[in-house]
């Protein structure tokens, strides 16, 4: 029964996609976009522990919802998809290329929902590919030169990441006894795998590219701002979490791997601080949000790293909790950018004030979801140097998000009477509310709130001082920020693009080589050479 629930979670978006092919039903689909993720939400609430293997005609997909945190991520992701769907269905009314947009939207949705539910390696790879590749359509939707460049960069990193993962999965499948392809079995066999090092490295590269770990983060600050508002919200909020669920599902937390864990933690904090450092030089609100996503995913990677080092399976659920908070806040803030752009006069405060709360929530503002999230990751990060780095990352986040707020205040409409459509404002406020309320509800369900002692003065103070320090730094940034060098969006991607130009020039060598091989004399000699070398090889053997 609960297995069927999972299947319907995928079935509805696919059905809507098929409905879109029929000219008769086509017009109705955009208005129904917010409904598409509803079955997935239901599945997350009531389908825990369910499993189903679809018939071969339906690709033989194997779905299951038993990993810790998977149902949590699925449910909250579906929630954001619903909010963003409302926003998209309103925004699409005046949009020229809405046909394309709806198709890519539904495809990305299907893959995104699916990655949280896939139970075997092949299903996971398939659905992960769907969300990764379909998101290209959302990134490049605008068709401008900027969007196309963003799409190209996104695609390059994505395809690379897919290749890493494919190899990792092949290694895992080989190391699993009994030919089982279930992720559960594959991960259990991973610590004893003869290719453990290679597999882990490939997994970190593959999922790290999706989460935006430095230096594979380059696509995010380029791609997320290029996409239309609702698409940015789901890309930065949900699509990135395909990497998070990847780490949750595939890293062998049951084994104690201090070296790997330490390395991942280091990469995570490098990412977290690097993204803040580059983010504060940016002047586009959406770009700053993208850098904030990179930074937050860095912190999450550090949490994973510590869990791996300690061999603590409990870290998966904590990380999922941290991730869903980020998911909701980041999704809501992208919607805020859209609403702010259409609001003027006093209505601006209806955007700015809640946005400020959400922004500081990322840095752990007491009473917000972020406060809970920071509290939960304290245990895995520990109280030593790593714990201190975690707290410092909150300072960085506060600084970065206050920088974002300053930029958000400047994107508001000049016209004092301008107001965003009621539906858009409503969606934004609802999403904002959910970003605060949902973490509390989840907390109440999953953990014993009283035992954590979250409102002890010490806990509150340790959450507040990073905010204050961040605030001071933000004031300093406001005063002397002009002296900072201007870093282009995507920072090192510029270097990579220059490198690509050089490589492309080198590829001319291949073209010249092809011309040479096309000459009769050369070809004739080569034909004889192949025969002789083959004969010689056989003689030698």
């Amino acid at each position: 029964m609960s297995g069927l629930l999972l299947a319907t979670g995928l079935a509805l978006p696919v059905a809507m996609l098929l409905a879109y092919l029929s000219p008769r039903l086509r017009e109705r689909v955009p208005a129904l976009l917010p409904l598409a993720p509803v079955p997935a939400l239901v599945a997350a609430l009531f389908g825990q522990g369910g499993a189903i293997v679809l018939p071969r005609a339906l690709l033989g997909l194997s779905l299951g919802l038993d990993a810790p945190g998977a149902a949590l991520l699925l449910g909250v992701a579906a929630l954001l998809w619903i909010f963003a769907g409302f926003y998209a269905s309103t925004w699409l009314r005046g949009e020229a290329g809405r046909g394309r947009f709806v198709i890519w939207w539904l495809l990305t949705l299907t893959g995104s929902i699916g990655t949280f539910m896939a139970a075997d390696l092949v299903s996971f790879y398939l659905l992960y590919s769907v969300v990764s590749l379909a998101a290209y359509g959302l990134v490049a939707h605008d068709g401008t030169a900027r969007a196309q460049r963003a799409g190209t960069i996104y695609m390059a990193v994505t395809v690379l990441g897919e290749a890493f993962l494919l190899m990792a999965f092949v290694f895992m499948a080989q190391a699993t006894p009994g030919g089982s392809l279930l992720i559960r079995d594959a991960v259990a066999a991973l610590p004893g795998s003869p290719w453990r090092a290679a597999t882990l490295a490939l997994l970190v590269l593959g999922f790290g590219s999706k989460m935006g770990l430095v230096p594979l983060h380059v696509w995010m600050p380029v791609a997320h701002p290029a996409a239309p508002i609702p698409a940015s919200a789901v890309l930065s909020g949900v699509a990135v979490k395909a990497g998070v669920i990847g780490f949750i599902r595939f890293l062998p937390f049951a084994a104690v791997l201090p070296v790997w864990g330490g390395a991942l933690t280091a990469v995570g904090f490098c990412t977290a601080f690097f993204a803040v450092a580059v983010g504060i030089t940016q002047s586009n609100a959406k770009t700053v949000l993208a850098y904030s996503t990179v930074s937050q995913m860095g912190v999450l990677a550090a949490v994973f790293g510590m869990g791996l080092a300690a061999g603590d399976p409990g870290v998966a659920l904590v990380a999922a909790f941290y991730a869903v908070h980020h998911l909701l806040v980041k999704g809501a803030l992208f919607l805020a950018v859209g609403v702010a752009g259409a609001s003027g006069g006093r209505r601006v405060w209806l955007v700015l004030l809640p946005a400020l709360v959400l922004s500081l929530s990322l840095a752990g503002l007491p009473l917000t979801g972020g406060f809970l999230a920071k509290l939960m990751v304290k245990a895995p990060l520990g109280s030593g140097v790593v714990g201190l780095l975690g707290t410092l990352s909150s300072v960085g986040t506060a600084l970065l998000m206050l920088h974002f707020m300053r930029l958000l205040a400047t994107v508001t409409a000049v016209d004092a009477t301008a107001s965003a459509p009621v539906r858009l404002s409503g969606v934004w406020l609802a999403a904002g509310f959910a970003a605060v309320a949902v973490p509390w509800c989840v907390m109440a369900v999953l953990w014993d709130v009283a035992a954590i002692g979250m409102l002890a003065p010490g806990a509150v103070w340790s959450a507040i001082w990073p905010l204050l320090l961040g605030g001071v730094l933000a004031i300093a940034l406001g005063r002397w920020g002009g002296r900072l060098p201007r870093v282009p969006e995507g920072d090192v991607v510029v270097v990579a693009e220059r490198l690509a130009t050089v490589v492309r020039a080198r590829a001319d060598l291949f073209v010249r080589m092809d011309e040479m091989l096309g000459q009769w004399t050369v070809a004739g000699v080569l034909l004889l050479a192949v025969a002789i070398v083959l004969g010689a090889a056989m003689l030698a053997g």
Partner: protein
Amino acid sequence: MSAATPGGFLLVLAIMLPMAGVLLALLLGGRHAERVVMALLPVSGLIAVAIAVVVWRTGAPVAYVMGGWAPPLGVVFRADGLSAAMLLTTAVVVCAIALFARPVFAAMEGVAEARAPLVFWVLLIAVWGALNAIWLGGDLFTLYVALELLTFGAMPLVCLDGQAETLRAALRYLLFALLGSALYLLGVVLLYGAYGTLDIGLLAGRVRDEPALWIAAALMTAGLIAKTALFPLHLWLPPAHAGAPAAASALLSGLVVKGSFFLIVRLWFNVMPALANPWAAQMLGVLGAAAIIFGSVLALRQARLKLLVAYSTVAQIGYLFLLFPLASNAIGPALSWNGIAWTGGVIQAMSHAVAKAAMFMAAGLIGEALGHDRIAGFGGLGRVLPMTVLAFGISGMSLMGLPPSGGFMAKAMLLAAAVGEGQWWWAVVILLGGVLAAGYVFRVLMPALAGGELALPLCATVSRRREAVVLALALCALLLGLVPVRPSEWLSQIGRVGAAQVSAP
């Protein structure tokens, strides 16, 4: 093994029907050629299906002994799992090509006979017959005849439009193919001199590890490589495949190059299965790997779509040759991986045939609709030809190796075998090839999917039915990925029956 098995007559039909069709079409001439082909398609298709069913059901090769004369006196035709798979693939691709080509090469009102349509229809079935003879031939000389038939059937298809440029490409193809044939024949003569038979089954029992075999194998392999256009002997392929009409390109790129490849497989895995030399196998693998990289990079550099697709064929042929280091059991302790590599290689051959044929036909439709095939001018193509762009994308998925396509299955199996046998260097090449393939496929899809502000000017409308044919064929490439892994073992089990016979004198 020298006795005919039930259903053996089907093999004769599979070869003779297309040949009879050729004669009939030439005899009736003119406007009737198309009708003959159309009548033949379902019948020959059903025969291919029937053979596959018999092989599947009995789990043993189907054989037919000509005139009841057992080898070495007579000639035997044999269908194993590999043959059946290729027969089916050929039937599907040829049928799709015929449906696609129908409006292009239709008999025109008031014209009794036009050169291009007559030549196309006659050669289409001639190539089909030749391919079936290659898949089924049981001795090296029959295979030589079939190979020549294939070359002479395929060559004129290159220059159907009669322009100087395509004529030059066709001549280049012909000359190189003939050089290859000569080398092959030389090897056949050596084998006959040394062992007194050309029957594959008998040869497998007689060959010894000695210079005569080595030289013969080297000559034959080199000749066949030239005909398959494996790097660095690919010079003739891009101009020939890119210059031919789309329907002919699909046939050439999808199926014809597989014919000579198939003979190398027969030679290595059926004639001398126990003697396959590890160094030579590695060398074939190296050439394959070089082809993957070289072909993909050149595909990335092309400005014209048909050339891009042609260079992609150069790259994809490379994957086929990874079969030799990965599936020849002379290397590595893990014998069971050989079977997996073998299955992966065969699925690669099948899915590339289907996907590449679909891709060339999609490229043809795009060229017809736009009047050019410059990739730079594809902005907004997705809006005017959605089905065609979708078909191109789906066949591209298979070439890239994205799930759930046949290309994914093939690559996953080859990767698994490479890892399992400890030959990880092939895995690196396979992955790199996938990334590069994604590069050249997206080079086409990106502008096509981008919403051009202006409506793209079309110089011709293409019929929805032809678009549907191409899309259906592309979907077949996708369906190959759904073939359950376990039954696909029959490919490896029945396919390698020659290997099993070595032990039995």
